[in-house]
């Protein structure tokens, strides 16, 4: 099993072939389209992370000592970035998730989407993913 850092490195590698912004986004959009959806009836208030620009739903549970995340968004680019976050953090131990620095976001040039002023729900989602993991550590 890859560690969080190894998975991040793999993503940075994949993105290094794109030198055009639009190609990079095309790839993120494809990832977003492939992300398993949360069923509409599962999109309840308690799973909703409200952003001004886009909304995010996140559900988390621990199975066999590992965190399992599913998430969704109404915006496809947000969803693509969620897909990357889930790929990195899913099936990892709660203590590893809690201390993950997620440097890959910056390395692939997507940090603007994780700026608190962007208000797309992603910053809160990362916080929430870590909170969910932290709760399982103690």
């Amino acid at each position, binding site marked *: 099993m890859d560690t969080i850092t190894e998975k991040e490195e793999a993503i940075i590698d994949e993105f290094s072939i794109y030198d055009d912004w*639009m190609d990079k986004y095309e790839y993120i959009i494809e990832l977003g389209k492939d992300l398993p959806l949360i069923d509409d009836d599962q999109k309840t208030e308690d799973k909703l992370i409200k952003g001004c*620009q886009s909304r995010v739903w996140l559900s988390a549970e621990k199975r066999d000592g590992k965190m399992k995340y599913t998430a969704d968004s109404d915006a*496809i*680019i947000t969803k693509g970035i969620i897909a990357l976050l889930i790929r990195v953090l899913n099936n990892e131990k709660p203590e590893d998730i809690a201390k993950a620095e997620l440097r890959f976001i910056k390395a692939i040039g997507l940090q603007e989407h994780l700026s608190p002023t962007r208000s797309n729900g992603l910053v809160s989602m990362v916080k929430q993913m870590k909170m969910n993991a932290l709760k399982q550590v103690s």
Partner: protein
Amino acid sequence: MNINEIRAQFPTLHREVNGKPLVYFDNGATSQKPQSVIDRITQYYTDENANIHRGVHTLSQEATSNYESARKTIQDYIGASSEVEIIFTKGTTDSINLVAHSFGELMQAGDEVVISAMEHHSNIVPWQMLCEKKDCKLKILPMNEQGELLLDELDQLLTDRTKLVAVTHISNSLGTINDVDEIIRKAHNVGAKVLIDGAQSVQHLDVDVGKLDCDFYAFSGHKLFGPTGVGILYGKRELLEQMPPYQGGGDMIKEVTLEKTTYNTLPHKFEAGTPNIAGGIGLGAAFEFLSKLDMSALVEHEQDLLDYATEQLEKIDGLKIYGTAKTKTSVVSFLIEGTHPYDVGTLLDKLGIAVRTGHHCTQPVMQFYNIPGTIRASFAFYNTREEIDRMIAALDRIIPMLKD
């Protein structure tokens, strides 16, 4: 009139964004600044900086005179009858809050305020706060699907308890130009005062507060080619005289003892503390810039941009424009079926095109249409048809990427 000559005076319009020449269509949020305004602010801080009013030294007197002459320039431009009716504020929001606070002090429990269904949050929340504090009633003038106010319904809303009608001149999210003449006439018939939110207007229309006969007119400097952090509240002199001060501090007093303070005369009564001196002088420079332009030709150019953009956007499959009033300024709000505004805005940015996405601080308008937000392109007179062509080409490229 040559648009390229005007564009040449705005340095920001000539930069690149993400490797593409910038197309700036977010003028509803803020406008770019001409070199003359930038230079004027630089000159103030380089050569003239001093605190104003009451300084006996030369620098202070010069700064005071420059600041007060900006007030006079603005008075002349918007047709106020005296410079004491021009209050410097932080912007439209601050101007409205000043009125809600100080005019609000003259209101009694049971009095009524009327606003419209298309107001910016800054012309909703201060009135909700006032009505809660003073136990007053807030009434809403509704609009139709096109985004036009239902003026006939105003007659039913106005009563002898209506103290104030606060409406926007131009809707920031829909572009509707409201018939404020008619609103002012109707409100005055029942003895109510009228505040016009002019945040989107002075840069697009020939505004004359004297002719309008409104009681208050609020606008921001930064949306009309001036600096941020400065705006204007115009108020009729006799009303401003009756209103208690907004904030207490320096500059707004006549005499202070530890027991009691008497207040300064207008406009200083409403300008507590050291004001935004550079901002005020910069705003004066923005009005000087505007007064050198042929506004009627520019308004015509903006209408052409609106018509052209509307016509081109309507050709896009699944695109719907929100705000189709008969009288509109150069704002187009739209959604494209099967896409989210956040995605469209993000990708347009990557192609160098700046638009705004979201609710535009008008959540009730979004609730009215039952949509999460829109993509808004808002044009200034320095924009061109070629730039609209670039946005359309960008949309043609983006939409297939986003749709399944």
